[in-house]
């Protein structure tokens, strides 16, 4: 597994475009989310010049995982789109709290039973560790993410120190929650 991290402008030639295509394949084609694309690449308002990315590639150079990191003192997904997940608690807004979003570790070259079970794969756990380390290197002391509640189980099983910020909300019949992931406890 080869991991590359940085802003879009600093990623190797065509890698950011490959990430956009990969995200489209994961989130739109596989998971069926109603997201916008530009030239076949899934991108939104949080894909900015200052956004950080962590990208995993297999031995053939194919993207098999990605993550997006945003400091919470700039516009970010939870703060802009899902503030109700904090249930009245302060919305994180600090240069040392970063949001992890658009995390995916689906290897389209491998047959797997589900995207969820893919999260517990070696690629997923390594990608998450790399994402936490990269966020820490850029000043993060904690991460927050919007997740289905089942992710809490998988994070804990993989040894990550995490806890829910508030009660889950039921969205499309599924419990979604804001999850804190501690950076110090997970330092690599």
């Amino acid at each position: 597994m080869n991991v590359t991290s940085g802003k879009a402008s600093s990623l190797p030639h065509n890698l950011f475009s490959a990430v956009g295509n990969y995200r489209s394949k994961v989130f739109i084609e596989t998971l069926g989310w109603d997201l916008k694309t530009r030239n076949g690449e899934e991108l939104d308002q949080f894909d900015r010049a200052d956004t950080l990315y962590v990208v995993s590639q297999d031995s053939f150079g194919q993207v098999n995982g990605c993550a997006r990191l945003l400091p919470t003192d700039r516009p970010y997904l939870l703060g802009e789109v899902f503030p109700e997940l904090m249930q009245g608690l302060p919305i994180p807004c600090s240069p040392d709290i970063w949001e992890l979003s658009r995390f995916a570790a689906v290897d389209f070259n491998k047959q797997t039973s589900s995207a969820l079970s893919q999260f517990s794969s070696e690629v997923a756990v390594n990608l998450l560790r790399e994402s936490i380390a990269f966020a820490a290197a850029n000043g993060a002391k904690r991460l927050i993410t919007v997740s289905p509640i089942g992710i809490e189980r998988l994070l804990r099983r993989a040894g990550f120190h995490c806890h829910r910020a508030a009660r889950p909300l039921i969205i499309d019949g599924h419990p979604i929650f804001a999850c804190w992931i501690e950076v110090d406890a997970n330092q690599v």
Partner: protein
Amino acid sequence: MPNFFPDKQPAASPDAAPGLAPSTFAAGTEGGSVTAATGLLGLSPSDLHGLCLIHLISGVDEDGPDDIADYAVPTLITGYTEWIGDGEPELTIGWDWKMTFESSCVRLVRVSEPSSNVAMHSDDGSDLGPAATAHHLANKVDGFNWQEEALQYINIRYQNQ
């Protein structure tokens, strides 16, 4: 639900602008406060004992057991259940279960440590730590009949599937 960190975006909330987080945040008058540093709800054992838990949602794991081989047929039904406390700030707690069949009866059995937003402290305010917190929460869960309500909810939720 077959996804991991969903960023499925509904229409942006008009009040979505992030506010400045205060350096400290403590709220609640019914036994507990949320600390800004951790976001955890601090409770003493007596606080926890006095809380009633209210059912929020229960469901069956749609992906089946994580470690099942591709060629195997899952025969174990597992799932999750989520509850909230009746105080403010709000306790949130959830755990996993498996379904068992004993003497022609369907039962749910807790199979995971409860996950929550709680950090237990002693009556004098000293942190009891994660292990003691887990122990107290497990005792709380095992001390009331959550199975009946969760099973009833699951039966209704999945009756047409």
